[in-house]
């Protein structure tokens, strides 16, 4: 297994170019660029309809690897087909990697994902989570955090909170599928690429969820993509951890979390979240963090 110790270790070879129509400063694009450094050109990225679908735009693509966009709800099953197709043709050494949004993953494509995981297909499933249906203009998904405004959870006279539904605990759910499941952050590329590198060696299904900071949807200055990604980790909004065989491993531990406020005020989507909302969100984060601390290095799910 390739292991990276620092930024300097990260391969200099890129299999991703500029020229896409993603927003300037797009987090998910960066995630894919980084991932391909580990995955290399003999990789098929299976993409679900979402922002990333517009990376290639006929007749051009920024990818130096292969790509299949089928539909929004079927990345995992498309990947299973590609996997077995390759294996039967003697190309078992090619990587089959899903790169799917949170809407595709948590919602519309979840049956397909769950089945591929249950069957332990040899696939790496990366969910780039921008906490919304980004490509359609930022609507609510079950990955949208409490208190976030989206186009379908706008604040209004009768509902100042925006989204009132607590997002699915996908890591736990995937952990309960007995697969390798991990979170990752753009601000911790070494950690991300090590997880990928590990997933690549596994003889089965791996699920990696990358927080995909989204300048357009979260409504922040694109220059802040990395800062916000880091802050998400630091304030416990996006803890870095992994689950394998039900055991929890907290990758970045902190004695104290930064208050969520700092994270919120950088982003338009939380503008006007009333103080009660902020409090409630802080509570949810604290509870989750406490749970992670308590079960670190233990059976978790």
């Amino acid at each position, binding site marked *: 297994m390739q292991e990276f110790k620092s930024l300097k270790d990260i391969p200099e070879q890129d299999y991703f170019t500029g020229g896409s129509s993603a927003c300037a400063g797009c987090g998910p694009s960066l995630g894919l660029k980084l991932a391909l450094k580990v995955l290399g050109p003999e990789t098929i990225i299976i993409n679900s309809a979402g922002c990333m679908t517009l990376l290639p735009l006929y007749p051009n693509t920024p990818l130096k690897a292969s790509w299949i966009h089928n539909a929004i709800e079927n990345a995992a099953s498309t990947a299973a087909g590609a996997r077995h197709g390759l294996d039967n043709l003697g190309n078992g050494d090619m990587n089959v990697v899903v790169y799917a949004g949170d809407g595709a993953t948590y919602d519309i494509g979840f049956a397909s994902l769950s089945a591929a995981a249950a069957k332990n297909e040899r696939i790496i499933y990366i969910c780039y989570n921008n906490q919304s249906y980004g490509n359609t203009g930022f609507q609510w998904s079950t990955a949208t955090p409490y208190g976030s405004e989206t186009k*379908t959870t706008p604040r209004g*006279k009768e509902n100042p909170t925006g989204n009132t539904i607590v997002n699915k605990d996908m890591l736990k759910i995937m952990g309960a599928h007995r697969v390798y499941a991990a979170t990752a952050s753009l601000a911790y590329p070494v950690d991300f690429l090590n997880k990928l590198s590990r997933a690549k060696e596994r003889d089965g299904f791996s699920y990696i969820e990358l927080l995909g900071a989204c300048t357009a949807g979260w409504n922040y200055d694109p220059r802040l993509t990395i800062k916000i990604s880091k802050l998400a980790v630091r304030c416990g909004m996006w803890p870095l951890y992994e689950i394998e065989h039900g055991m929890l491993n907290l990758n970045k531990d902190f004695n104290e979390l930064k208050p969520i406020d700092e994270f919120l005020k950088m982003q338009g989507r939380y503008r006007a979240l009333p103080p009660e909302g902020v409090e409630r969100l802080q509570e949810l984060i604290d509870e989750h963090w406490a749970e992670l601390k308590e079960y670190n290095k233990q059976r978790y799910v």
Partner: protein
Amino acid sequence: MKQTLVTGNEAAAWGARLVRAKYIPNFPITPQTECIETLARWSADGELPGTYFDRMESEHSVMSAAVGAAAVGSRVFTATSSQGLLLMHEVLYIAAGMRLPIVMATISRGLSAPVTLWSDHNDFLDQRDSGWLMFHAENNQEVLDMVLQAYRIAEDPRVLLPAMVNMDGYVLSFTDEPIIIPSPGQVEEFLPKYAPAHTIAKNRPVTVGPPVLEEYSIFRAQNHVASRNALNVIEEVQDDFEKIFGRRYHLVDEFMLEDAELVLVTQGSMSTTAKAAILEMRDEGIKVGLLRLRIIRPWPNEAVAGALKDAKAIAVIDRNVAPGKGGIMFPEIIETLYNLDRLPLVSGFVVGLGGNPQTESKVKEITHKLMDDLAAGRPRMEWNDLEEI
């Protein structure tokens, strides 16, 4: 009457608001998003009292939830496009078979693969066997009016079928046009409370969607007859509609057909451009008119035949294609003409796939080709928008 500048998406949302739809399950897809976002805003602002705006996890689930709510007697609205419409395809048949008068705005967009975001009519027409009533608007006013009428027609005890109101993506959905938005009182007068007799209610246990044996044909026939009934209901409703709103619609939209020798048959927003082109061609002395199909199901056979019977040549302009076959409406038009005494020449044109714009000059080109065909006595099958090939 209040006139306001709204997009087609907003017009459909206004329709849902005015009919007091009680349940709005939804899932986003370009170019429908603005419609549900408008409803979401209204909902958050308390402007849709008693209505539940339900964010679902897929369009399959949207239509499933719509069926669930309609089966307990709720008035339901939703909207979708393209891949979303295809994903709920299975459930569309079920909603019709259960005779549940759900109304859905469809915002047409071409189908994958390859992916396009722009409009053509393949997604909408793909539903033409499903048992739904299918209406297609030309402009934003008609979008709103059709939603209002759709509920009235769909909920009529002689019909009891779900209805789709289609508008072209972008060209209508994202274009502001001034339209008259009626008052809630007017709409209430036009469309009373929905009080179905065949759905589940307290003290009225009903089994919805059981398997059947030989009776299957009967239920299918009833679905068919109910849809045919809608033709009368649609005409009937116009009196009330005109009385209340001052506007009236017909089974088909006839434009300068009285003396037309050449007729273009169109659907949706491209009809507007075609009308403009026709006005200009009329100035040049070309006797051309237009028939706009605004009701696809039930198929208004007699109205179409009546409108076309005096034409010498007809261009069926299909903004869609069934690969390996051709334009989808082409055979339906031909069928409608087949038993006329004198058969016009009919040419077929496949145009505007994946949003290729249909300009006036393209309409004129089609008309001239049709004139050539008439002169040569030989119809053609033509594809537009392939210049780059």
